[in-house]
Structures are given as structure tokens and as C-alpha cells.
């Protein structure tokens, strides 16, 4: 089972992001589960959601406590919430940030110089450019797909467009495609953590 925890703030679409990721896996014929950290969500408050992806049916219902990947939708959470709690030693990290991880000043354990497992993308800027609104979910999923290879970008795009029909979906898919290409290009150049 591949486990993902998505951190963000109320209103940024962490639930939508988790559902789109689960849907992408489902579209590939795999089993998936997404659920929010049920709370009295208020706009701007720290929130999280969880995704499990597996080749066999998923029964467990506990929150994801030892994630294989963490997606951070809001960089200001790095100083507020222990977003890396329980992250597996070889786990992946995707951070929405205009800067690279050194600037963020809060490194996950043993990730400082490991671009294979960590990427910062300016998903908010990319989202604003494509969608006109600071909604980074789809863009971060594009980066996630490139970094982890757990789902393909084609599935992410299909899931995004199924979940968000029409122009909104097409714009979100374009944002996901851009971040995916950025991270793939970064990986092939073997360069820094920032894409």
C-alpha cells in the first residue's frame, strides 16, 4: 500500500486533491481510498487529507500515520505543523513553494540533498497563471506523479478533468502538465531540488 498525506489550509482543496489522486489510481485499475482529517474545517486553518493506493482492496481506515509521500500545499505550514511526522525513510516530499527547500528552513529528515525524493514547485504561481486562482492541487499532483511514478500524468489529467469538468478541469490539467514537465526536466538534468 502506498500512503500519502496531503497538508494544506482550509479552502486550498486538500480534499479535492486527495480525491483526484485516488481517482487517478482507480482509473489505472488499482484500488484507492481518500478521506479527509475530519475536523471543523475553517478557511485558512491547517487541514490534512489521506490517500491509500494498492493493488489489492483496502480495508484499513486509520489516518495515514507513516506516509510514503507528503504533499504540502502551503509552505507556511512547515513552521506550524509537523508535516513530516512518520514519513518513511525513503519517502517522497512535494512542497508548494516559490523557493527551494533550503530557504524553507525546515528540512525533512535526511532530505536536504536528495532531489530524487524531494521537490519544491511554485504550484500557486502556476495555478494562478493557468486557472486564474491560487488553487495548487492539480499542479502538485503533476509534480507528485513525476517524482514518485506512483500514478501516470495521463491518469492525473483524466482524474482532474473528471472531477472538475469543463474549462476549469482543462486549466487544472494544464497546470498539472506544466509541473510534471518541470520535475521530469529537473530529474533528467540531475539538478537542485527546486523545479
Amino acid at each position: 500500500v502506498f500512503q500519502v498525506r496531503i497538508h494544506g489550509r482550509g479552502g486550498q482543496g486538500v480534499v479535492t486533491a486527495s480525491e483526484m489522486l485516488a481517482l487517478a489510481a482507480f482509473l489505472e485499475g488499482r484500488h484507492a481510498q481518500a478521506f479527509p482529517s475530519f475536523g471543523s474545517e475553517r478557511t485558512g486553518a491547517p487541514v490534512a487529507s489521506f490517500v491509500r493506493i494498492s493493488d489489492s482492496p483496502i480495508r484499513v481506515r486509520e489516518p495515514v500515520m507513516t506516509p510514503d509521500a507528503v504533499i504540502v500545499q502551503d509552505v507556511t505550514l512547515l513552521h506550524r505543523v509537523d508535516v513530516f511526522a512518520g514519513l518513511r525513510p525513503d519517502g517522497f516530499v512535494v512542497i508548494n513553494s516559490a523557493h527551494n527547500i533550503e530557504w524553507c528552513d525546515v528540512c525533512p529528515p535526511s532530505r536536504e540533498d536528495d532531489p530524487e525524493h524531494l521537490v519544491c514547485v511554485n504550484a500557486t504561481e502556476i495555478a494562478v497563471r493557468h486557472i486564474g486562482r491560487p488553487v495548487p492541487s492539480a499542479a502538485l499532483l503533476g509534480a507528485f506523479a513525476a517524482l514518485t511514478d506512483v500514478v501516470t500524468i495521463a491518469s492525473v489529467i483524466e482524474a482532474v478533468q473528471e472531477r472538475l469538468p469543463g474549462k476549469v478541469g482543462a486549466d487544472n490539467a494544464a497546470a498539472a502538465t506544466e509541473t510534471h514537465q518541470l520535475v521530469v526536466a529537473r530529474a533528467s538534468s540531475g539538478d537542485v531540488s527546486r523545479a
Partner: protein
Amino acid sequence: VRRQVEGSRAVAETVACCRPQVVSAYPISPQTHIVEGLSRLVKSGELAGCTYLNVESEFAAMSVVIGAAATGARAYTATASQGLLYMTEAVFNAAGLGLPIVMTVANRAIGAPINIWNDHSDSMSQRDCGWLQLYAADNQEAADLHVQAFRVAEELSLPVMVCMDGFVLTHAFEEVDIPDQDLVDRFLPAMRSRQVLDPDHPVTIGTMVGPEAFTEVRYLAHLRHQEALRLIPEVAGEFLKVFGRPGAGLIRPYRCGDASTVVVAMGSVLGTLGDVIDERREQGQAVGTLGITSYRPFPAEAIRAALGNAARVIVLERSLSLGSNGAVTTDVRGALAGTSTEVVSVVAGLGGRPVTKVSLHGLLDRSASGALETFSFLDLDQTAVDRELARYADVAPRQTQEVSP
């Protein structure tokens, strides 16, 4: 059709396939997405021939479905927590009147203190209301239970409550095979009522019944509950024939045939428990789990047959009967009376506290080492309890101030 879908959405679409003629609802978390979904399906015309009433309270919601069912309409509502309590008086009436209403309860704790998260306090508070109570282990079962609930309700002239864990199931986005309309139509015939309010053939229902007959009325209702013990597995068998997957049945035994220790539970915790049981089986431990799907009627015989070989049964209670233990424990003890099986009670997951695999393994470790008490709480924060007890001891009661006239 197999889809990746929110539990609430799966239930809304499944209920729509059952062609309810009246849906009456008042929103309350975590149930709201279900009736919002139905509202959209009525508005879009996908659910035709249905009157959707957005009422001013849960008491009105239940009263409306009572009126609708009394005229012979297939009627549905959903609620949770305080909403269920607010409609309680009408809930008892629906059962007493023998009306085949189906209601979803998206299980949630009851205040005070206010808590929107999942446990079974709400539906357990209605244990004796006369409704059948079915508990879903996952969203596939939640959807399927609704189809079977309408069948059972209408055959028995009794209301059925389908309980699904709030948030844990209602808000989980997972794979569900939503029943096809033509299969539902084949399985669930158009509503036929034994008792209909009809101006051309006037009758009165729910009149005063005095001491001379009230016991007999209750006895007859109890007989219908006993009848449900036969009917629920029968309907589940038909469900399998029509839909190609097992129906609900009364209980859900898992690897408990040769188990010396069996954990009994209701609802979504059975999924996590299944993983824990598998992990311990791999270590050669003879453990199993038993889900209770039908809590009312209580399938004592089936449970006794399934648990008879176990040395110890651990009942995982998702609600607490303050001053006693948990209601399920009492029932399970009754079912196993006269056997040598020991029954212990563990209160777990109150007010949304996750029941984790680590905690369940710890529980089974304590059981194996003989350290598990007859009654305990899973993951109790003893430090917080002690701190509060100390604080309480320190606070001197204050004299009530006299109010000047």
C-alpha cells in the same frame, strides 16, 4: 457500475435507485451530503416521481415521512447525532405504527461536550425504539444495505435504520459498485403497504391502547423482529442472486471458526480489524473477528453458533452505556450465557478517536498476556484523567448566591 465515489454520494444514488416517493430531510453533519445528493437528483429529474421536502427540523423530517408512509408512499430520510435525538419521539411512533420507513444514520457522537465526529452513541441511544438497526462495515455494504432495507421494511411493515460511520464512511472516497437501476427494480418491487390511510376507506391508526392490549401490541412487534431474523438472511441470499455479490446477513464472521480469541464489533472498524487479524494469523495466532450487521433484531443464536468455540470474546464498543459498560457487550454476554466463553468489553473510538492498528495489536497483546481487564478503555489518556480528578478535588463547591427578589 463500479466507481470511485464518496460514501454519501454512493448512498444517495442507491437510495434514488430504490425510487422513494417522499424524501424529507434536515441537514446535519456528517449526514448532509446524502440528502444534498438526493436533492440534486430530484431537481435534475433523475429521481422522478419523488417529492423532496426540506423541512425546518428533524422532528418535522420524521413526522413527514411518517405521514407519507401512512398513505402508502415509499419514504426516506437521513440524520445523525443531535438530529436523531431531536426526532426521537417520532422515531418511536414510526415503529409503533408499523411504517416501513428507511432512514440512514451517519453515526456521530452526542453532546455535551459538542463533538461532530464518529461513534455509535446516537443510534445506540435508539436501541429500544422498535426499528431494525443494520450497521455497515464499508461503503459497498452501506449502499447495498439500503436496497435490502427497503425490502425488509416493506415485507415486515417495520422501519429500518441503516447506520454508517459518520465521516469515516460518509466522507471516504472509495470504490463502490453502485447498484444498477434495472437490478434494483428486479429486486425491489413497487411499494405495497398492508395498511394505508385512504379517505375512501377510512381507518384510524395510532389510537390509544390501554392496559388491556398494549402488551399484546408490543408482543406482536417483537414477533416481527423475530421474523426479521429469518427474513434478513433470506433477502441477503436473493440479493446475491440478483446482484452477484453477497447481501448483508445478520453477522459477518471473519476467520473465527477455529479462533480462540474473537473481537466482536460493528461498523467501519471491522476493516482495520480485518488487517490486524490477518497480521496475527500470519504469526500463527488463532484470532478472528465477528461483525454484527443486524443489531436489532439481535441475532443471539447466530452469534452463539459463531462464537461458541472461542475461549475469549472481546467486544469493541463504539459507545458507552455510562454506569454499565457497553450495550453490545450485554447482548453478547446474553447470547453466550451458559457457555464457558469469557466476554470482555473495550470502549474504543469515542468522539472520533481513530481506532488504529497499533492500538488493536496492543489490545490483543494484553489479551494474550492475561492483562486485559473485564472492562477497559482503548487508548485512555490516564494522565489527563488524573489531572482532571486532582483539579476537581481541589475545587471547593461554591455556595449558591441568593438572588434578591
